């Protein structure tokens, strides 16, 4: 049976693509790589029939997606290490910095840039916590860390964002 001919799987992709995209984006910070990771996640689920798991679907999907994204990032970093285009990383980013975004009144973009600048161990729990389907216990299961650690990291991430945003706003309105 092909993918299109499987209505259950098609419905799953339509229902959870955005959710999976957000999980993998939090790891990869790149839309193109995140799309590759989404595809890889669903293909993996389709091949091993894991998508038929009905119990706690969001947590299960998030776990598979997170592992797929981590694997993909490892592969990508291995291939770029030997790539001559490594110098591109040293070029100035085309995305606006938090300061630029804030001055252009695009506050959301400024916070997004600040989230991207967080360490991964803080960023991923923060992004997962913003998804209504997941609580601290489930995030801990997905990332393989205790629930208490998840809460500590969430508090720490929010604290950093608050401090940086306050600093930016002071600069802006000074």
């Amino acid at each position, binding site marked *: 049976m092909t993918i*299109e001919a499987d209505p259950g799987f098609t419905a799953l*992709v*339509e229902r959870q*693509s955005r959710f999976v*995209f957000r999980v993998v984006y939090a790891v990869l910070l790149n839309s193109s790589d995140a799309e590759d990771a989404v595809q890889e996640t669903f293909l993996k689920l389709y091949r091993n029939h894991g998508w038929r798991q009905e119990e706690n679907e969001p947590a299960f999907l998030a776990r598979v997606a997170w592992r797929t994204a981590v694997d993909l990032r490892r592969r990508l970093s291995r291939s770029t290490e030997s790539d001559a285009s490594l110098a591109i990383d040293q070029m100035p980013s085309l995305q606006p910095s938090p300061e630029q975004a804030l001055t252009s009144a695009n506050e959301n973009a400024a916070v997004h840039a600040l989230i991207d600048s967080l360490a991964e161990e803080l960023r991923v729990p923060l992004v997962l916590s913003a998804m209504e389907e997941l609580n601290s216990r489930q995030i801990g299961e997905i990332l393989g860390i205790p629930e208490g650690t998840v809460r500590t990291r969430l508090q720490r991430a929010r604290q950093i964002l*608050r401090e940086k945003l306050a600093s930016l706003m002071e600069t802006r309105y000074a």
Partner: protein
Amino acid sequence: MPERDKIDQLIDSALDGYAEPRAGLEQWMLARMATDASRSSRRGWLLMAIAVPVFGALMLMIYLAPRAPHAQPPSQIASTSRGPSTTPSAEHSVGRLVTEPAPHVVQSSGSSHPIRHRDQDVDGHTNNPVTRPKENIFPRPQPMTAEEQAMTRFAAEASESDRKALIEAQRRVDEPLNISAISIVPLPSLEDKQN
């Protein structure tokens, strides 16, 4: 703290819109996966198209390859090497001896020497058995050659003394030749001659 509340609201609203994929991601993803799946399926068929004939050819080669003779229990070897058997399988045993490698000495279990198997030589090393094609029809006796016919006639017609003389002549032919050691005496030198 109104400032802090405002910042928290800002963070929450930004998190809600964080990592928004492009519009139509679901359909695009389905189409992409279908393409990849059909490509990998085609690759799978190609692999099968190569693997199946190769496997078939290997199986055919294994089936058609000459088979090594089966191991024979020592007791059966003993019965075949002691001479003609009186059992109903005597003809069968003789027939097997023809296709087997060089015969080996096998002693009874009461002997102090161990039984040497047919695929071992004197030193106990294992020989590779010579594989010979198995004949489907037992070979029929061939007509006697001219020499054999002459020998048969001689055995039937010759007298006792003639037969003994023939055996004696054959024995002399088969006896090893004894050649005495050659000793060469050195020639005397000229000085010895003069003295």
